């Protein structure tokens, strides 16, 4: 299995609080992604990174920010959590042209109450 770890795996937080989810990889892959998965919507891209300190928005980036200060870590921050951000969050990594398969973490179930 690819070395990709998400933490925490489960979290309950209150509306209005900041939350940070961590994705850690040991594969030295260049590309990293954050998705949210909701019934009927599939996986929607929040933000992605194509290198250290290089990030771009996905289709549902409002209310989220990311940081990637080193290759192995990609952090997703909910600046002020809302109930609409209750979801399952997946991180993925991709090695690029020589290793195009994306590997996924096990997901983080976030509940905002």
């Amino acid at each position, binding site marked *: 299995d690819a070395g990709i770890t998400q933490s925490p795996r489960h979290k309950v937080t209150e509306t209005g609080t900041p939350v940070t989810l961590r994705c850690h990889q040991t594969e030295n892959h*260049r*590309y990293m*992604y954050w*998705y949210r998965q909701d019934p*009927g*919507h*599939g*996986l*929607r*891209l929040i933000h*992605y990174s*194509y290198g250290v300190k290089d990030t*771009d928005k*996905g*289709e549902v980036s409002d209310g989220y920010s990311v940081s990637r200060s080193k290759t192995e870590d990609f952090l997703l921050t909910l600046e002020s959590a809302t109930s609409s951000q209750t979801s399952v969050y*997946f991180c*993925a990594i*991709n090695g*690029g042209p020589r290793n*195009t*398969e*994306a590997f*996924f*973490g*096990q*997901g983080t179930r976030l509940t905002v109450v």
Partner: protein
Amino acid sequence: AQSVTQLDSQVPVFEEAPVELRCNYSSSVSVYLFWYVQYPNQGLQLLLKYLSGSTLVKGINGFEAEFNKSQTSFHLRKPSVHISDTAEYFCAGIGSNYKLTFGKGTLLTVNP
């Protein structure tokens, strides 16, 4: 604009019947295309991928997909499904800067 479109949200079939799950892609993705499967309460697993070469791609668990450039399609097929194939299937494509975009998923339910 959505770059990967899965045409069916749900596909019910009987065991041992053939199945086709449909996927169309737009010009905003390159011709790197994938099918992933997600079993209940699990993460995503790669079924198969098309990068170049032969347009018929074989994957795990007896699945295959055909890349059709003229129809911008990448449909997934299996000649005979099993109960254990019940899962959600996602088509995905890669765009600029390796932006990986997914379709909304197709829930395949195999009935006895």
